[in-house]
């Protein structure tokens, strides 16, 4: 299985229509990658769908880079893993 960073990078790449290689871990979505607020929402929804998790609305503004997004996703995946354990 691909690791979560790679999977999330691919999700983001598809939504923002860039090559995965362009999405550097600390590249800023809004300034560096041309992401707008609707794309950010789509990224959030796509991650929720893929991992079957639910991320609250307040977290949307925290999704500023790939690293941030992976961190937030892991936070909620962690909760889910605990439930399943």
């Amino acid at each position, binding site marked *: 299985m691909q690791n979560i960073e790679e999977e999330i990078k691919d999700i983001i790449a598809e939504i923002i229509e860039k090559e995965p290689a362009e999405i550097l871990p600390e590249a800023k979505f809004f300034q560096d990658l041309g992401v*707008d*607020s609707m*794309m950010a*929402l*789509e990224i959030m929804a796509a991650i929720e769908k893929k991992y079957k998790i639910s991320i609250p*609305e307040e977290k*949307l503004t925290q999704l500023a880079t790939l690293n941030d997004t992976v961190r937030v996703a892991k936070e909620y995946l962690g909760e889910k893993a605990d439930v399943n354990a």
Partner: protein
Amino acid sequence: MLNIDELQAILPQRFPFLMIDRVEELEPGKKVVAVKNVSINEQFFSGHFPGRPIMPGVLIIEAMAQAAIVLFSQSKEVIKDKKMAYYLGNVKVRFLSPVFPGDQLKIKVEPLKMLSAAAIVSVEGMVGDRKIAEGELALSAKEG
């Protein structure tokens, strides 16, 4: 259920761009089923296409977007009665079968992700038991 007067209180669109006639089912936060009766008198049929009338896909998307506005606005107590401006952010729709004059287009919209000022919804268009289009829309709302 919402009739055309109630719909016009919600939707900012007007003739010739009101693309739904009635809402048959409304479950705030869960589902909207809207109806568009497609008549040969629609202006677009004279050009799309002469002698071969087919409802333009972009207008099917518009009907879906208007049904999505109904779902979004009626799911939010704070904006229910406010005048809002709506923007489509993204459209992913696959067309499966054409829509002809005389068809009754039924559009079902369900939320995939609903935030305070934006939503992603799944959309499905049916004519009878024939699915004519399906996909996802992303829309946002601003006051004013």
